């Protein structure tokens, strides 16, 4: 009994250590974003909000932010359309070749993002399409689709097919069934899938590098600034803002669908 208690205590200690490991770094950057000093040095001597002001008025950051928002919105809309269509398709045709389908669905998820990036980049070059906001949107849509798909498929799996049959038996047309039965059933899954897709797109670096050309999205700006070691106090602020901004859609999505949203970890895999 004593050994058991000891083991249990050890496990909980481990849990607390992992939690500290998970949150420590994120808390660190948030704290540093209020540091007045130009260079990060410990202990922090004085606190300020002035870097927030600097970042807010930085024209480059603003442009990058606007581009990120635009691309994320467009990619989300496209992903909602294509992802839910794919989900309906696969859900209905579940009986034949299911194993193959599952492998084909997993493959693009499991392939590193850089592969998607190179593939898109070479396709664009080959087709003579010059890189613009549209190529960013196409690139982001490819992985946003997966999120929407996962959410909708999870919901469809939980809804019984008898509901649709009942609707048809009661004389509803296909479009009526869709409008009054299917859509309300999957509405929250769609919204949460869309929100997650938005967050994903807003944060994406790897695929964007290969599809953005000369333009900066916000993550690309952050990447460049860290790499060159310039404007680091501003990076602290921008990065903190991104973390906070991303939390909003994530929390709403989690509220809407509960564990459904995250039941599969592949939700977030395709990007990085």
């Amino acid at each position, binding site marked *: 009994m004593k050994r058991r208690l000891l083991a249990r205590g050890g496990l909980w200690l481990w849990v607390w250590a992992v939690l500290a490991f998970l949150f420590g770094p994120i808390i660190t950057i948030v704290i540093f974003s209020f540091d007045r000093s130009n260079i990060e040095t410990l202990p922090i001597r004085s606190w300020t909000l002035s870097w927030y002001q600097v970042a807010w008025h930085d024209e480059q950051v603003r442009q990058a932010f606007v581009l990120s928002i635009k691309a994320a919105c467009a990619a989300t809309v496209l992903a909602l359309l294509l992802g839910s269509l794919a989900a309906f398709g696969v859900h209905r045709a579940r009986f034949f070749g299911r194993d193959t389908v599952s492998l084909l669905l997993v493959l693009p998820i499991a392939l590193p993002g850089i592969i998607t990036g190179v593939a898109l980049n070479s396709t664009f070059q080959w087709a003579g399409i010059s890189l613009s906001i549209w190529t960013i949107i196409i690139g982001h849509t490819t992985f946003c689709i997966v999120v929407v798909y996962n959410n909708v498929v999870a919901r469809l799996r939980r809804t019984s097919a008898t509901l649709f049959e009942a609707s048809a038996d009661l004389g509803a047309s296909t479009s009526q069934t869709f409008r009054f039965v299917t859509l309300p059933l999957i509405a929250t899954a769609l919204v949460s899938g869309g929100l997650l897709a938005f967050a994903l797109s807003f944060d994406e670096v*790897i695929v964007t590098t290969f599809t953005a050309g000369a333009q900066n999205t916000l993550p690309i700006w952050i990447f460049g600034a860290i790499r060159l070691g310039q404007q680091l106090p501003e990076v602290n602020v921008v990065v903190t803002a991104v973390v906070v901004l991303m939390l909003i859609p994530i929390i709403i999505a989690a509220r809407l669908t509960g564990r459904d949203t995250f039941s599969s970890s592949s939700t977030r895999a395709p990007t990085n």
Partner: protein
Amino acid sequence: MLITAFWSLNGFTGNVTHQLTGANFHQIASGSYPAIIGRTVLLAALVTVTDAIIAFPFAYVMARVATQRAQRLLLVAVLLPLWASYLAKIYAWISILERGGALNWTFQHLGLPSPNLGFTNGAMWLTFSYIWLPYMIVPLFGALERIPGSLLDASSDLGASSWWTFRHVIVPLALPGLVAGSIFTFSLTLGDYVTPLLVGGANSTLIGNAIYQNLLDGGNLPLAAALSTVPIAIMVAYLLVAKRFGAFESL
């Protein structure tokens, strides 16, 4: 999604066969590339093992020890960092590990020698393990949670010690989750170039960096594409093995 995936991959292979001669692959097999590939695979394996070790007890507590309420809280605690900005996490580790960073500072105040981990392969290992950890915890938690409690009761009723139950009942049943998690940790490390570029040092070039440099800095698309086949081949082989363990159900 399938159409998009195939469209891009087809365009990609079409492009490669168009210009591919043995020379590209010959180039990969010589020079510095084998060392880069070896380093990448080794690091990916190391990160996977590290994450598995950190994640297992945590996922076990989440799935089998914690109360419902604690379980929900822990799940949120894992998912929030998972969805926190990727660059934010990398930047956090840069500022922790660099010379005047929090880690050296703490060690100094404890009277220990500075570890000076910044911009080394060790820093890369730590950062990767950190970023991908939630990807290991979530599927592992799923697998552990699905184990019926009656099986564990049966095992102890039949006289098995807790260690025996752990070794012969829990671990085999958690294996699909473990393998599913390892698909993420392995694949994500394999294709990353941002972390090595920002956190790593002079000797930290990974396959991803080689692809990135050839494509964006060198403009050598065929060589970059040929290099891309390396992670694809590794991942396809890995997935085929993973399928054997029934990992796809846990993804």
